[in-house]
């Protein structure tokens, strides 16, 4: 989708967090292929710069990078200092983590990491970027929730709850920022085959994993279209929309029981018995 032509130097940017990861990279490439100038952040500067060089050459866009651990308040403050004076027309909050496993098996550091990145990081980014929004155009926010946001999820209890937080937050914020000319879109995908671990995890879920899986490129493309239309929730895949509808009809206890059975099974097929933590 094209946007009105603006002189190069005045063009505002798209901020993408987690830009060097599987889904983030797909979003970065999709944005660049649409001719949008970018500001990319992730943990590792080298991977960011490598991606940025390729995007500049292939798609003739301007790309800035800044390496930052968004789960650290100090690092976030440094990032916000860095972007002072820049103008943005979109924020894609892609950075997020999951440590799969039983809650009582996990270290408190692992649990804290999920809350700090998925919730604190996303909220502070959203707050800071709203202040840097380009006043001349609609401001688009995309938060990555998950299909996991629609029902309590044993084995991914903290993660799913953090995604539920983001989903509810997004829906509420969407109403608040309407009068600023901003929109908030919550992306709720199923697992994506972006890393070897993810591919193994999908395989461990059997046929259901196979058919609920959508490629990251497709997800990035349709999410950006939905964000430009200001849609509230994006669920890639018809079957996943049915899963969502079903989980809305079921009582939470039953939904958690069913989901728990499926995840425990997948967890064990991957050779991860209860009592043995696995980090993704």
């Amino acid at each position: 989708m094209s946007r009105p032509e603006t002189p190069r130097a005045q063009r505002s940017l798209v901020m993408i967090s987690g830009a060097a990861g599987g889904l983030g990279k797909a979003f970065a490439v999709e944005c660049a292929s649409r001719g949008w100038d970018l500001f990319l952040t992730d943990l590792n500067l080298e991977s960011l710069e490598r991606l940025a060089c390729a995007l500049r050459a292939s798609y003739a866009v301007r790309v800035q990078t800044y390496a930052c651990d968004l789960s650290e308040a100090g690092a976030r403050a440094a990032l916000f200092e860095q972007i002072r004076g820049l103008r943005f027309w979109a924020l894609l909050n892609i950075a997020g983590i999951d440590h799969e496993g039983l809650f009582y098996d996990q270290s408190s550091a692992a649990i804290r990491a999920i809350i700090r990145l998925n919730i604190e990081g996303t909220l502070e980014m959203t707050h800071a970027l709203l202040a840097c929004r380009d006043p001349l155009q609609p401001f688009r926010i995309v938060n990555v929730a998950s299909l996991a946001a629609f029902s309590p999820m044993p084995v991914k209890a903290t993660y799913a709850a953090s995604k539920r937080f983001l989903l509810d937050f997004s829906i509420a914020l969407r109403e608040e920022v309407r009068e600023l000319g901003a929109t908030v879109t919550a992306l709720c995908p199923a697992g994506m085959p972006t890393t070897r671990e993810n591919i193994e995890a999908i395989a461990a879920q059997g046929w259901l994993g196979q058919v609920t899986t959508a490629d990251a490129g497709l997800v990035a493309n349709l999410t950006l279209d939905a964000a430009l239309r200001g849609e509230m929730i994006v669920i890639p895949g018809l079957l996943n929309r049915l899963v969502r509808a079903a989980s809305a009809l079921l009582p939470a206890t039953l939904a958690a029981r069913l989901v728990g059975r499926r995840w425990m099974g997948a967890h064990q097929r991957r050779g991860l018995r209860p009592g043995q933590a696995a980090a993704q």
Partner: protein
Amino acid sequence: MQYPYSEKTFVITGATSGIGLAAAEQLAQGGARLIGVGRSPGRCRECEQRLSTVYPQAAVRYLPADLSGQREIGQLAEQIAASLPALDGLLNNAGTFTYWLSLTPDGVETQWAVNHLAPFLLTNLLLPLLQRAPAARVVTVSSDSHATGRLDWDDPQMRRHYNGLLAYGNTKLANILFTLALNRRLGEGARVRAFAADPGLVKTDIGLKGTPAIANLVWKLRRAGGISAEQAAAGIVALLCDPALQTAPQIYWKHAQPKTPAARALDPLAAERLWDLSARMCAGQLEARNVAA
């Protein structure tokens, strides 16, 4: 004893298994000086030791490189240029299949990066070396799957609607279009000639790496009717070495016989467009190494 390739130098990518390894063996047997390229340092060491022991008449060296990264390809070309005075043949054989969409560190779809951009970039970086040989060949391993290829210029890597098999076909179509455009650039009567090869259906493991069980099974059934990697390599070695082919006008070959590819693979406009696109996608490494593609 006289060895047919004792004066010749070759570079083979994907040379630690399948067709690439079989071609390396045949060239080593003929006394060639060759550099094999593979992704795994361990397998590279094994192959180098084994071929050097079995074929003392040859000078065999292996360089590990992951061809999904453009920086790694640039470093590989530098290492090759530092160790060879001239190059008689480059065999772009390395290829991969991915069932799910994945992006390389350069943000490129993996099959597009490994199967198409890697041959494009490596060939352009090694062209000065090839031009120093009296008669040189660039052979790129394509496949009859190119017939399913349809390049959508809005999304040539199929990022938005990915299908692993169709994306594979696209890269194999790109191999032939690349060969076409390269020959046009080299001009008629050039000392460097480019060919694309159809190896036929070969018993290799290409369809077994990182694919779901059902796709594994389909590939195992299909390859049961295939030819051996040695048979496939024999035709490719002929394309690399046979002096009689230096002026052959055909660009697509199977078992050393010319073959007519799909009409789309011979479209000169598409070939030029693909060349420009590829040059832009590899601009970082081409500019860093002062090569104009």
